[in-house]
């Protein structure tokens, strides 16, 4: 499924209105969430309905309308460049799933074939 380049809202709407089980599996992998086959079945159906419903935003999102990403306009906000005490290392590491020698202990980063 591809979104056509043509800007026609209705064309886009038509093309966007399906979300297959395979697509949900692909996106869940991108989001690093393991799903059981039963979850995939259910989510695919639910998400398809939701996507069809939210796709109507393109009906009024014409090219002349600027996008808003933030409710109140702000730019270049900085705080004073003053040193502050960091979080207590031991307190932070005490909450980690695993720690060793004052560091987070994590699983191997690369697969065997990497």
């Amino acid at each position, binding site marked *: 499924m*591809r*979104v056509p380049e043509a800007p026609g809202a209705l064309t886009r709407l038509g093309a*966007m209105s399906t979300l297959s089980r395979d*697509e*949900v599996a692909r*996106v*869940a*992998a*991108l*989001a*690093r*969430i*393991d*799903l*059981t086959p039963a*979850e995939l079945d259910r*989510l695919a159906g*639910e*998400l398809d*309905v*939701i*996507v069809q*419903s*939210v*796709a*109507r*935003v*393109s*009906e*009024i*999102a*014409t090219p002349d*309308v*600027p*996008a*808003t*990403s*933030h*409710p*109140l306009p*702000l730019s270049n*906000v900085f*705080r*004073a460049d003053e040193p502050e005490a960091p*979080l*207590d290392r031991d*307190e*932070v590491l005490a*909450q*980690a*799933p*695993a720690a060793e020698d004052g560091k*987070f202990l*994590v*699983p*191997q*980063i*690369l*697969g*065997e074939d990497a």
Partner: protein
Amino acid sequence: MSDITRLTAAELAAQLVAGEVSSYEATQAHLDRIAAVDGPVHAFLHVSAEEALATARGVDEARATGEDLHPLAGVPIAVKDVVVTRGLPTTAGSRILDGWLPPYDATLVSKIKAARLPILGKTNMDEFAMGSSTEHSGYGNTHNPWDLDRIPGGSGGGSAAAVAAYEAPLAIGTDTGGSIRQPAAVTGTVGVKPTYGSVSRYGLIALASSLDQAGPVTRTVLDAALLHELIAGHDPHDSTSLTDPVPAFGEAARRGAAGDLTGVRVGVVKELSGEGYQPGVLVRFEEGLALLRGAGAEVVEVSCPHFDYALAAYYLILPAEASSNLAKFDGMRYGLRVEPSEGPVTAERVMAATRGQGFGDEVKRRIILGTYALSAGYYDAYYGSAQKVRTLIQRDFAEAFGQADVLVSPTAPTTAFRLGEKLDDPLAMYLNDVATIPVNLAGVPGMSLPSGLSDDGLPVGFQVIAPARADERLYRVGGALEALLEARWGGPILAKAPELEVTR
């Protein structure tokens, strides 16, 4: 002695100052109330009795020595579990954070601690604030004190239920699309979503950063104003925090309570009533309008044609932002870590296994929806279009505020529905927030206050909306409407709620 837990925060504060009651007694009374009713209500995920009593004792000692104290010092408060509290468990309603003890305080918690309000505990919520019923909590449902078979609203059902059940006079909520106001509406309480940036977001576990805002959850408009004053103010740790001085919200509420709204223009948003709204909700709304008119306000109708698209835009913007905010729950630095049941134990596979097991259904739905809306090929059509709708909604508000000083609507289309009723229909659940979502998209402030009972005997909420940075208008108009309604009812609406069975 009368029951301390029935006092408003302002009344309790006055009694503390007058020495008629100690903070220790007040805190203990609320802890006793929690012990007596929270089994069936389940507003709290964690009760911090020892810490609260220690704070209370400190306040009493300081008062005895004549120390200068904050006006709310010693008044107990409950905090929604999405707000981090150093050393107190914070889960955001998710199993993925089960047992996590944050190593720092949210700025609003630092302010609460500096003002010396005893923190009673952490309140239940939909997981990561995703939901309108608190049924998506990883730790069980919260029940509406008006009818334990019904939802307390969400995501902040715990804070609203705690206040409605007299377990706390004050609570903190957060509102991304209605999570303070909709629970207030269905529990007969008051909730305010401040102007975006009025209250620091530092230390809120972020859902959608461009929409999230913390605010007060209380039983009266004046209490909300006083709590808002306490938690507001500029914070260098939040780049979106407003630098404006904090207005005197309490004064605005007191002025409003005098009941004179002469010259105030009230705009009724045409698109936020009518079809889809329960008849009993609309009756109470009309009654509220008549009272405002009687107080001298000029009521006009305004149209916000793009509000019909707000829900769709919200369910693209929120999942998109949430999918990136929740990427940090990866099983590496805090919270749950799950190793895959078979195959190599690599970081990526641990992340996927952890998130698969640690997140609930609604969180998975929204992360996947957001990831999809942001993914290559769909970004412009979905997220880009939604951001344009956001512009159109802001323009609607700008136009409407040209004709009116405040806008009003019912807070939610229906009263509290039964637990389980909408759990299997995400879209039906999302519709609960149809009247509250436009407010977050525009960053303007909104309040819900009780406007009576529907024909089903359950509370109805009245929403007041003001322009950005004009939050004091909410307190003035809300204070006036509350005073007029209470004069008609002969007391607060919660006096009509059935008494909860007390278990010990």
